[in-house]
């Protein structure tokens, strides 16, 4: 097909967005050393590399430290209410399919109060990218146990140590019908964080990334074992998933070739005991997307809505003799 006139004319407009174009006037107010900084940077790098117009980009969040991210992005943003980022993002996407939608949420936000929305968002498989900043704790409210807190964690709500085993966001997500993309990555390997985010962004459907996020303020040294011992990380590599650069490959020697279409293996990897799987666990672009399935044959103009409503009313209307409802023409 040849390019249309408007496409040609639009190509005359050269854009050159820099990272600074995605930085808002507010400097991040996260604690020094907080992993959220790395996630913000990865997101801004992605926007620059994809040259996403800020006015076509939306970040939606709930409540928590992680959920402050939209404030720091120069793009459209919606700092929603606790646990409700996803329904808001879904509303945006279905009404404005042309926008690039990112959802940031924390382990408390997503896995406690927002758990129901999480399940259904995975099932809807609408085209957007979700980042779960999992620091294993409620950060903003100053250290309460979250559903992903390890058993035994002493916190303000669990002074004698958390009593239950943590919930595993990966295995939960992989178990939901219509799941189409699940990845895990730590915030402290920026290159991988960027690669996974980029894979998620290019995936058609709902992409779920669990990011192991350091909270030096309340969970200091919590991830140290993994940060300091590369062998604790199992790198999942594949031509359709992560491809490690030689420098990283030399450090992270614990590697497994994993086909992202292999759901069973993904489920097994999600629950590894001693090791942390990093990379794309599952990616299937052929899962149907709710936003595409529900796309109307005609845009819902106010005129069309009015007409359809009137047609419905006419079905139960009583007409004076010799008159009838107005008929439709081409």
């Amino acid at each position: 097909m040849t390019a249309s006139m408007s496409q040609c004319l639009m190509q005359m407009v050269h854009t050159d967005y820099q990272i600074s174009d995605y930085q808002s006037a507010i400097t991040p107010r996260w604690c020094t050393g907080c992993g959220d900084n790395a996630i913000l940077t990865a997101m801004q790098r992605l926007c620059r590399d994809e040259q996403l117009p800020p006015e076509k980009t939306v970040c939606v969040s709930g409540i928590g430290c992680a959920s402050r991210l939209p404030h720091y992005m120069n793009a459209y943003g919606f700092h929603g209410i606790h646990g409700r980022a996803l329904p808001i993002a879904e509303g945006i996407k279905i009404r404005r399919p042309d926008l690039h939608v990112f959802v940031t949420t924390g382990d408390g936000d997503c896995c406690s109060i927002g758990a129901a929305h999480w399940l259904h968002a995975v099932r809807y498989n609408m085209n957007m990218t979700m980042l779960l900043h999992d620091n294993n704790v409620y950060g903003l409210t100053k250290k309460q146990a979250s559903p992903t807190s390890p058993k035994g964690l002493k916190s303000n709500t669990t002074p004698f140590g958390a009593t239950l085993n943590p919930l595993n966001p990966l295995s939960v997500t992989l178990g939901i019908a219509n799941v189409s993309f699940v990845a895990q990555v730590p915030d402290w390997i920026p290159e991988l964080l960027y690669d996974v985010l980029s894979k998620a962004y290019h995936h058609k459907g709902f992409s779920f990334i669990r990011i192991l996020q350091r909270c030096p303020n309340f969970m200091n040294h919590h991830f140290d074992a993994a940060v300091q011992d590369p062998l604790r990380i199992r790198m999942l590599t594949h031509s359709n998933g992560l491809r490690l650069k030689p420098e990283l490959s030399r450090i992270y020697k614990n590697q497994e070739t994993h086909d992202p279409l292999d759901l069973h293996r993904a489920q097994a990897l999600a629950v590894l005991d001693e090791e942390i799987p990093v990379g794309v666990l599952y990616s299937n672009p052929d899962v149907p997307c709710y936003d595409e399935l529900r796309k109307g044959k005609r845009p819902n103009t106010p005129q069309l809505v009015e007409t359809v409503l009137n047609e419905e009313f006419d079905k139960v209307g009583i007409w004076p003799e010799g008159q009838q409802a107005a008929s439709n023409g081409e």
Partner: protein
Amino acid sequence: MQVAQIITDPQVPGSDASAGAAALTALRPALFARYMALDTLRYDYPLVLVEGEEVQKPLIPLSQIVDEALRLVAPLGPDGEELRQQVLRLEQRMRDKVAKGTEEKLSELWRISSAELVAESGQSTFGPLDETLERAWGAITVDGRVIGCSEATPRKVLAHVWQAMHHMRARKFRYKVDRLVLKLNDILKSDHIKSDEAHSPGALAQSMGLDGDKSIDFSALSNILHRVRPEDRLPADRVARIRHVLQVLQTQAFFGPGRATFSYPDKAVCYSYVFQSCTEALDAYRDRLPSVIEFTKALAIAEMEVENKYVPELHDAIFESFDESDLTEEQMAFLPPAVVFLRDGVTESVELARAYEALACGLPIKVMIQVDDILGPTSPEPPRNSFGAGNARLASMAMGINNAFVVQCSSAHMVRMQGDLVAAMQYGGPAMFSIYSGATKTVAGVPAYILAAAATECRMFPNFSYDPSAGNDLASRFDLSANPQLERDWPEHTLLFEDTSGRRQQETVRFTLGDFALADARYHRFCQTVEAGSWSGDMVPFDEQLKASSSATDIKRAFVLGIDRQNQMMRVVVDDKITVAARRCNDAWTQLQELAGINNSHVLAKLAEERRKREALVVELSTESSLTQSPDEAKTEPAPGAPVPKTEAKAVEEESDSAVAEVLDDMPWIETSRCTTCNECRQINDRLFGYNENMQAFIADPDAGTYRQLVDAAEGCQVSIIHPGKPRNPNEPDLEDLMERAKPFL
């Protein structure tokens, strides 16, 4: 037409002259015999002109619809047999009605006919027969007018196909335009929300709906909102441009509002695109051109505005100078094409000429020329708004225009050709349809369908299409495949008949133009019937005579086989006049065959030459490439991206890297690619530590800070990627202690 059956009267026909003359007026080609009781046959007519939203096949024969329904509801075997018989009886009833001139929608025709059958059967409504027919109807998913084959058919069919494509275009159009209108309105709305007007107490009260207890103070609310309202309004020129574009898109007169009609009670009446003459169509085209240009511009601007990519400094000038010469085929094809219905013998000649002009100009115009006579007068006459015998060449002439989509077929084959009819209507440029109706006035007693089918069969009016968008060569553009026995001059058939003694006989005959001409009263004077008793040895079948060279001295009498009203077969000796016409017909057919690559010795000769050339080229190339692949060249000049040299380059790079690292061992450094942008080091000293273009830290200026700051940062860095190196200022206090602390990070 595979098998014809002619049961001749067992009596030898009388040989008196008056009987021969009577036979002449009712003369028909022998191969017509089995088709004359057309009403009882299941064929392409009655034809259903399928209506609906997304019609892929706008033409479906009634018999096919019934078969499909039976396949769904009538089980195979005796169980389904009764149902099948009842439904087929209903089909026959509908067929009879259409033959008598009824023209209804299928649903209505079905309803009337089944009510009649039920009444005749003596059963009541809702009785078993009614229920059976109702069940069959339940399996039918299409509806539309049911038409027979008559002189009015080509126009009805083409108008219907145009309409179906018009619906499709309308849907595409509305999807695009409505979407843009919504989006542009959104832009204006989001700007309006920032206005004083939108923040006035009145506007706020209205947007809130009912406030029964008056508990909201809208003036106070308005004051608060005034203070926090964003100031970034859209530039006035952008607002004006969007308003203008919206106005153009919403008042366009190319397509109606479709389903949303209710909301546009005073919507401007849409343009009509159906014309009776090319002059009318061209006048309308000229009149509408300004609105076409204005709309096309508005559409492009709207698309750009929605993407926020309209830059006045770049684009204003382009749109200002935009005129009809800038209109692309794609832009034209977005709007409806005109359709013009012309009829040979009725339309004035000047209009026919105008039609070819319009086609040649490449305007989006679809011209149908209906032809009712293809043989033309028997001697040259002053033309009466007709091409006469040239009627059969109208489409071939249009093909010479080259950019027009051309379809030729008779009304007997429109279903078979519907893929081409649809494609020609969808084609972005001009199209020409030449359709023979079969309703020739000088042929009596032969149904239009039979004559139309025979015209194709005898090669006088072959089916073909020419699609300029299908490729660059004739092989992809020209399609002659919808004709019987493509490779032959004349199609062959087996004729069954009884001889004078009542024995069954069969004979292979070819259906030629001579046979076709038999039915035409104008040609009877060139025919002479010879009954079986008078057949003589100097008679040869007409097609054999045609094969012989025209200068053959041995004079033979050429005959074709005819029948009279009683289906009595006779030889009909035809005159030279018909021979000449048949030769011309065969000539034109041979040319079409050549275009389609059949029997084309010319092409074969070319092919052989090409093959020779290619072989020569291969030899040449192989000698050349053995030269270029000389070993030294392959080494010194590797192709870009070749794997081996790349790895080599890498190795060199790494080597030099480590060499440099050794030299710089004393310098402070950061493993930049592992930096997580936590800002910790930059809070210590943001001149010593800088961020690169990916927001990752590096040593911006090693002399901009102290060794203490470097060591503090190295200890503070969460991912331990800061390496302080050796102290650069030997006079810095506490150096010994600092160097001890720096050890884990060296």
